[in-house]
């Protein structure tokens, strides 16, 4: 499948990255911010795998980076959701504007 040029895959991953950035900047709900973060991590994974396949086909490092990023993203999502549930229990809200006690 070498007929697909690398720049098209990079176009898709860059677009996905900046969609995630847009969502991260505009949303104020913690769960939706977490979802935007997942989009950003996914675009980075696409980049790693695509560079590995197209530029360094004799190595496997990009695949390993993708696997480890997926693992760490899973752990991070679990911890973040535990924090969100705890915050909801104490504040009855998961909006980031409402959790400002530790700001100053």
């Amino acid at each position, binding site marked *: 499948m070498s007929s697909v040029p*690398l720049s098209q895959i990079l176009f*898709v991953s860059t677009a996905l990255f900046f969609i995630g950035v847009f969502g991260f900047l*505009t949303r104020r709900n913690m*769960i*939706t911010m977490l979802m935007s973060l997942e989009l950003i991590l996914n675009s980075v994974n696409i980049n790693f795998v695509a560079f590995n396949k197209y530029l360094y086909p004799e190595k496997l490092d990009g695949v390993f980076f993708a696997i480890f990023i997926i*693992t760490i993203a899973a752990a991070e999502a679990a911890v973040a959701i535990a924090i969100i549930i*705890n915050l909801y*229990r104490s504040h009855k809200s998961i909006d980031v504007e409402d959790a400002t006690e530790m700001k100053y």
Partner: protein
Amino acid sequence: MLGAGLLAVTSRKIFRSAIWLLFALIGVAGLYFWMDMQFIAAVQIVIYVGGIVVLIIFSIFLTQQSGKEMPKPPMMRVIAGALAAVFGFALAYLLIYQYGFSSANQPFNYDVSAIGARMLSTGNDGFSLPFEVVSILLLAAMIGCIVIAMGAKPEIRKETKIEIEEQETIEA
């Protein structure tokens, strides 16, 4: 896929937003299939679609009414965020376009058993140390989740724990 991702960050009902995120992640898995990376695509589907999206949907159910619409973000913030995203995208894509990657025209031989062997080899280019570090990280995340979510409602704690254990077994 991009449309699903865009809807995931702009939809005002949070539950629909989660479902659009699901479709965007499936689209990413399809992209991996298209690049002949079946193992990464399978890992993507199992962990993201089967684990993280389910976790997110559960947390949506636990924290708020799913039919309620979220308040619209202020227009100033939308404009600023869109400008930042568009200019960043333009810059990054211009760099990609100008650089002009020369692709190495070798066949990409890629084998799941090769991944497994490199994952556990302690040699010069093995990934045994990151593997162990990640396993410790997963253990720490699991214990941390239990400690953080431990509180008045034990059923929430149990659910989080089960989700993490699922992911841990998937990784192992």
